[in-house]
């Protein structure tokens, strides 16, 4: 019993100190975002600031650069990507799972092969394509290359495979068209899978830096990660208070959503490894 007690305490001691290290950047970010400048440059470990400067730091973060605009861009881009991925992937996934056609095997192999392509490896041709289409520095340029998610097709196909064929035959007898079956029969059964995929897709593209960095130039098109970097180099310089406030604002939406719906988020994010 004594040994068990000791182990229990040791376990908490190790886990809690590790967790503290893992959380430290988040804590320090939020703490600094409410600190006045003179306390930031003080060379001493102070967690609770003597003077609360949260209001001015967040005001500077929100007014010196159009941070809310960047957030709106992030929202528009992530939602547009997710919706187009669903519109493209779901019908194809249905065809692969439930219909017989020549070339099905080839198509499926092509999808498995495309799963291996990391997006960074095709960024040069994407850039040239966006240039040809006149889509550089636009929402279209940020969204279009990601409108095809082979992972989405793969995932939805796996899910549709489990839907009983009888359901589809019955719908056909009821006079549903194939497209009607996709959106009115298949999609409603796949809501949990779609939510997981949505979380995966939105988190990945909210946090993406590589492609937006290449395709976007003008300030009004910046996504949140580009925005916070621009804020650092243009406005903030060494004013860490407002900079940490900006970082907090950009990190907050996903972290809050995650804390509210942990299970779904963990499912959605770790799913990306399942491909």
């Amino acid at each position, binding site marked *: 019993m004594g040994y068990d007690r000791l182990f229990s305490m040791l376990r908490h001691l190790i*886990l809690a100190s590790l967790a503290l290290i893992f959380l430290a950047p988040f804590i*320090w970010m939020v703490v600094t975002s409410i600190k006045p400048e003179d306390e930031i440059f003080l060379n001493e470990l102070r967690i609770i600031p003597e003077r609360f400067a949260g209001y001015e730091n967040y005001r500077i973060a929100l007014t010196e650069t159009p941070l809310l605009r960047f957030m709106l861009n992030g929202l528009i881009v992530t939602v547009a990507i997710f919706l187009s991925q669903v519109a493209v992937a779901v019908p194809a996934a249905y065809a692969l799972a439930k219909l017989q056609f020549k070339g099905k095997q080839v198509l499926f192999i092509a999808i498995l092969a495309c799963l291996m392509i990391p997006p960074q490896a095709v960024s040069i041709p994407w850039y040239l394509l966006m240039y040809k289409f006149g889509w550089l520095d636009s929402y279209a340029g940020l969204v279009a290359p990601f409108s095809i998610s082979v992972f989405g097709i793969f995932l939805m196909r796996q899910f549709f495979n489990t839907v009983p064929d009888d359901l589809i035959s019955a719908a056909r007898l009821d006079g549903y068209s194939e497209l009607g079956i996709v959106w009115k029969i298949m999609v409603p059964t796949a809501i949990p899978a779609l939510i997981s995929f949505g979380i995966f897709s939105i988190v990945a593209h909210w946090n993406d830096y590589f492609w937006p960095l290449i395709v976007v130039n003008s300030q009004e098109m910046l996504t949140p990660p580009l925005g916070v970097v621009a804020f650092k180099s243009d406005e903030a310089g060494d004013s860490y208070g407002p900079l940490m406030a900006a970082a907090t604002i950009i990190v907050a939406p996903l*972290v809050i959503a995650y804390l509210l719906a942990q299970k779904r988020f963990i499912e959605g994010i770790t799913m990306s490894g399942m491909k």
Partner: protein
Amino acid sequence: MSVASVTSLPVKNTVLVENMSAVSREQRSAWLLSLPAIALMILFLIGPILSVIALSFTNWQLGMTNINWVGLDNYREMIGDSTFWKAFNNTLMYVGIVLPVSVIGGLLVALLVETRMAGKALYRTLFFLPVMGTLIAMSIVWEYILQPDFGLLNMVLSKFGMSGENWLNDKDTVIYVLAGIGVWHQLGYNLILFTSGLLAIPCHLYEAADMDGVPHGWSRFQLITWPMLGPITLFVLVITSIKAFQVFDTVAVLTQGGPGKSSEVLLHLMYTEGFEFFRTSYAASITVIFLFIILLITVIKIRFIDKRVHY
């Protein structure tokens, strides 16, 4: 008899025709439903990957109107380019640290979290948080923490009587610091994967071990837990190494490959060559090397996953 056969013939035929048309209708709708996906796959994935490979054998640069086939020239230049080898070695170094530390660390923390009920859910939540935080924004926070004069890390170190470094500006420490941030970002992800692996181990195996008198601790881990975690471990190894090879965000924000190329990595080199110096075909050849490494890891994964390692 003959009458019957004559009348039955047309009926048979219409059934056959109807079947044929149903089959061809299914074919047609299947292709129509897949068409957008196929078109976009060709436009944005298959076409681009082939053109990157083709581009790497030319001398084309962004804005140039003529394009010449130069065979292996880009690759020859790459072999003689000391910056490429620095980037290659640094990337290997980075993966060489992030892979073992975040995989073994993730496993150990998962085991420790799962041994007792108390605080289980809370610990899982906390360790997963860095996976959720936008890495670019958190990199800026890390830069501030690592700031030599008033950064958190050096302040804490001085409390313990140690003197800190100028972490990001020292060519001897910078890649370790970046790898440390990589571990911070990846460990929680691996922890969750290992946790799901642990939860999938059937209880009766441990009950059987109880009956056979297998002692708790190491021997039980060796006998049951570790073999049962085989498949998921391979999975974690593959995912972590692919992610680690893709390191870019932290380098782009914190060091730009410096000081003196001591933190240059493959993707960042490809980005600067392609989109800052516009040496497009040379960047394409770096991309091909990067792609080759990723494909190699994926092929290993497919081979092993198919064999299902243990069981």
